[in-house]
């Protein structure tokens, strides 16, 4: 028994490991294409970005081994401490942090830098898993709801203050976890309705939305009046109340959007919704990335053949906009395969999470699935012009050591937890 426990590879899910390496490999190919230059094309070249990425990938192997070596129980045991340490690392940024691209999100060690927020995600997932696995956890209770919110709000707030609101947004992913663990559905429903009203108000204006939703609510009232007479007698005041709340919400969107938002925020939304055509300054990134992807066509231009990739037209192409390289060089076929790979990868994590015997492992797995999903949705959505410009990396694809390591830690802690399930009875 002891001998078996010493084998760190025992029981790990090789399929997930395979997904991991496929995604890393494809990601590196595209980073290579996006950053290679005519006079600098050796694969082993540590002054280039693709060369540096090889180092990061290489160094992630000992990191993985390290994670697998620890006893799985330790992650649960020390979850709170890991969480606290990670929060301290965020607070420390305000004293020791280095400012890159306008955000103080980095610790600098000589020639390389680390971004703690990439690791805080894993710590928060552990903390959340720990909280949920406690005996008196019940999301129907306000107290529990507040506790969960508290765990999420603190790192999100610290990251927002850096300021890096994009990365903070990722903590919204935990709504999926809370929903899975019993958060009543109407929270989600309220969220969806609010989002729909928000978009509709921005596109069609407050008056149209107001009238449109009025018509909808009248229809609902009529339906209840004719077919659900009993429910109607009990519920009509509620329905009218909901409508009044919606109306208030619509007015407040109008107010916030036009008077609280700054012009740059408004621009991001307006460009996305097609209300302003701007290809020169603010809409430049989105326009370039969409054009570059469209340039790929069905089969793509081929590896290293993308004209716009070569011409360096897309800003930050090796980091946040790496998917444009996939789009241009590998075409519809290639980018669809990448999307499917991500979908299958996340679905695999969900599936494994569901088979866990401990609440802790399950919640952790569910958390990382939600985090990967959020990163994927926001990043790809931004690049193909469906989501406003929010700068967060595409897992395993985007250039950058902290992100790569952060996602590696996130994934392999789960693989370790899963491998340990054979000892759980």
């Amino acid at each position, binding site marked *: 028994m002891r001998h078996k426990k010493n084998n760190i590879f025992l029981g790990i899910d090789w399929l997930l490991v395979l997904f991991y390496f496929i995604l890393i490999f494809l990601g590196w190919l595209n980073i290579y294409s996006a950053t290679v230059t*005519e006079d600098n094309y050796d694969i082993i070249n540590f002054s280039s970005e693709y060369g540096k990425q090889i180092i990061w990938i290489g160094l992630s192997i000992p990191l993985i081994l390290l994670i697998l070596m620890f006893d799985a129980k330790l992650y649960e045991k020390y979850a709170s401490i890991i969480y606290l340490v990670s929060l301290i690392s965020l607070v420390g940024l305000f004293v020791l942090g280095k400012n890159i691209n306008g955000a103080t999100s980095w610790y600098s060690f000589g020639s390389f830098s680390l971004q703690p927020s990439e690791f805080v995600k894993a710590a928060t997932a552990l903390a959340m898993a720990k909280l949920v696995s406690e005996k008196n956890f019940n999301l129907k209770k306000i107290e529990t709801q507040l506790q969960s919110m508290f765990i999420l709000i603190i790192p999100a707030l610290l990251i927002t203050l850096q300021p890096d609101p994009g990365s903070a947004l990722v903590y919204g992913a935990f709504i*999926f976890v809370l*929903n*899975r663990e019993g958060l009543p*559905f109407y929270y*989600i429903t309220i969220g969806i309705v609010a989002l729909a009203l928000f978009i509709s108000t921005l596109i069609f204006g407050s008056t149209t939305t107001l009238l449109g939703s009025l018509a909808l609510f009248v229809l609902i009232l009529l339906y209840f009046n004719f077919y659900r007479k009993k429910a109607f007698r009990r519920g009509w005041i509620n329905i009218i109340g909901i409508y009044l709340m919606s109306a208030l919400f619509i007015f407040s969107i109008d107010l916030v959007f036009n008077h609280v938002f700054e012009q740059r925020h408004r621009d991001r939304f307006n460009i996305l919704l097609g209300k302003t055509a701007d290809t020169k300054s603010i809409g430049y990134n989105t326009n370039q990335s*969409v*054009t570059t*992807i*469209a*340039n*790929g*066509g*069905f089969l793509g231009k081929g590896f290293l053949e993308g*004209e*716009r990739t*070569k*011409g*360096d*037209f897309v800003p930050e192409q090796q980091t946040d906009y790496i998917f444009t390289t996939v*789009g241009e060089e590998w*075409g*519809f076929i290639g*980018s*669809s395969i990448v*999307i*499917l790979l*991500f*979908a299958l990868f*996340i*679905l695999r994590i*969900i599936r494994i999470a569901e088979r866990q015997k401990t609440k802790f492992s399950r919640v952790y797995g*569910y958390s990382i*699935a*939600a985090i990967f*999903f959020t990163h*994927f*949705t926001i990043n*790809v*959505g931004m690049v*193909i*012009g*469906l989501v406003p410009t929010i700068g967060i990396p595409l897992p395993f694809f985007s250039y950058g050591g902290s992100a790569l390591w952060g996602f590696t830690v996130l994934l392999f802690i789960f693989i370790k937890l899963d491998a340990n399930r054979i000892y759980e009875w």
Partner: protein
Amino acid sequence: MKRFNLLTFSVVLISVIYIARLFYLQILDNSYSIPTLNNSAIKAVYDYPERGYIYDRNGILLVANQVSYDIMLIPNEVKNLDTLEFCSLLKITKEDLIKRTEKAIRYSPRIPSIFLPQLSKSDYAFLQEKMYKYKGFYIQKRSIREYPIKSAPNVLGYISEVNEGLIAKNPYYQLGELIGTSGIEKTYEDVLRGRKGVKFIQRNRFNKEIGSYKNGLYDTLPIPGKDITLTIDSRIQQYGEALMANKRGGIVAIEPSTGEILALISMPTYDPNLMVGRERSANFTKLYLDSISRPLLDRGLQAQYPPGSPFKVISALVALQENVITPYTTTTCHHGYKYGSGAGSFMKCHCGTGYPIELNTAIYRSCNSYFANAYRKVIEKYKKPYDGMNVWNKHVESFGLGNYLNNDLSVGQKGHVPDGDYYNRVYPNGRWRSTATISNSIGQGEVLTTPIQLANMTATVANRGFYFTPHIAKHIEGIPLDKKFKIPNYTTIDKKHFEPVIEGLFNVVENPAGTAHWSKVEGIEICGKTGTAENPHGQDHSIFIAFAPKDNPKIAIAVFVENGYWGSRWAGPIATLMIEKYLTGKTNRPLVEERMFKGSIQDEYDKQLLR
């Protein structure tokens, strides 16, 4: 019940939406997918071929090319510019410098644009050694037009930079490129221009070139422009321009047997070299704004005048064809023609005969009464004047009058030949009779023609009943001439009716009593017709049409001299001198010639200004 798995659902939903979006972007939507070679990642560098030369019918060079130098500017690359020194070097003011720089920035801060166009060779030699000091500025060589002979600017036309409207319509052109804007440069633009070659260069988003695109797979070599030989005879073109000095008007000469235009003169004219070089835009503005003498109006093609007496030729031919007169029908002229009972219904005549005259005499004495009578018989042959008018209209239009000639000239006017519908509009309810339109018979009334139409009509008479569409291109290197110029257009008049009329025209010059006997040239049988077209805006226009020799004619000509009074005063001598020059290569009437060279109607034009 198993709880609905929101995350799984979302993963599947988002994947489907994203793949659908990619499908739309990469396959369905064409607004994003730019043609590969128009991609902003790829820069096209053009190699401009030399524009074709233009020669006259005898091989004399009319338009050539010369090298010019443009100063180009890339605003973003300008560094530490010594404004004062630079301005004095280029001989521009500081305000001008600022204005031009702003214009270049507006076009693009990164792409080169023309800062100062068309420097002369000497300016270039001087600047060349100093330009290295001014970062962001460089000199680019360019080919521009040169005109060895200062003649026929209206025929040759000029080239200028394409405007944005044209770029939008024709993707061949780019900002700053040259295009033929008028004359032959415009109609034969595609031929003269050739086709520019292109090299594609891959570049990055800073417009930095990083090598040739796909090793030159899509690159093309330039195709040189083709030379054009015109039908113009530059000798008589220049001679005609000299004869027309200080007079306004138009002259068109045509070779009847081919429809080739031998001379196309519009006066006042200007030196075509004004449209080239650094002063081009100033010169153009000056010519364009001259609303009094309007040098940019091609009077040979665009000015519409009442044809006056030369139109009697048509009246005679139509009357003969309609069998309402014979050459021997007589009319007696009592100093005019009374066509109604009212006191105003009288058309004056200066033929001064007073005895019964036949067609021949009527032509060479230019008798108004005879043709008014003949015209009236044509219209009244039909029950309704409306039908008569339409028959008449059909005959007249068969001479190429009243419509565009549909040739290879860049401008033109329809002129006007009225028909029954026209008079129904003027006199509603059909309350009009032949007499209301009687002025048409002598080329006044509602008839309007351009000089080229009248010259073509003369050629038609010279050919005894058909014409070839007048055209300006004789030969294009490697391209056959448009077939439509080789098909004869027949009139509705039978050939037999032309001889008696031509006899009358011959007598105009030959007979001592002819209206243009003064213009007779020894040894050449000229058939002509004078015209004095009434002009409500001032003195009458002097008109003359002629062809020669009488048999097997070589040249047909129409001359309009604005406000020149009698046809025989200016137009007659000018037309016959040009015929003489063309047929014999010289002229034997130095005194007449001298009078034409020196004669001026400027006084008359100045009088019009005062009015």
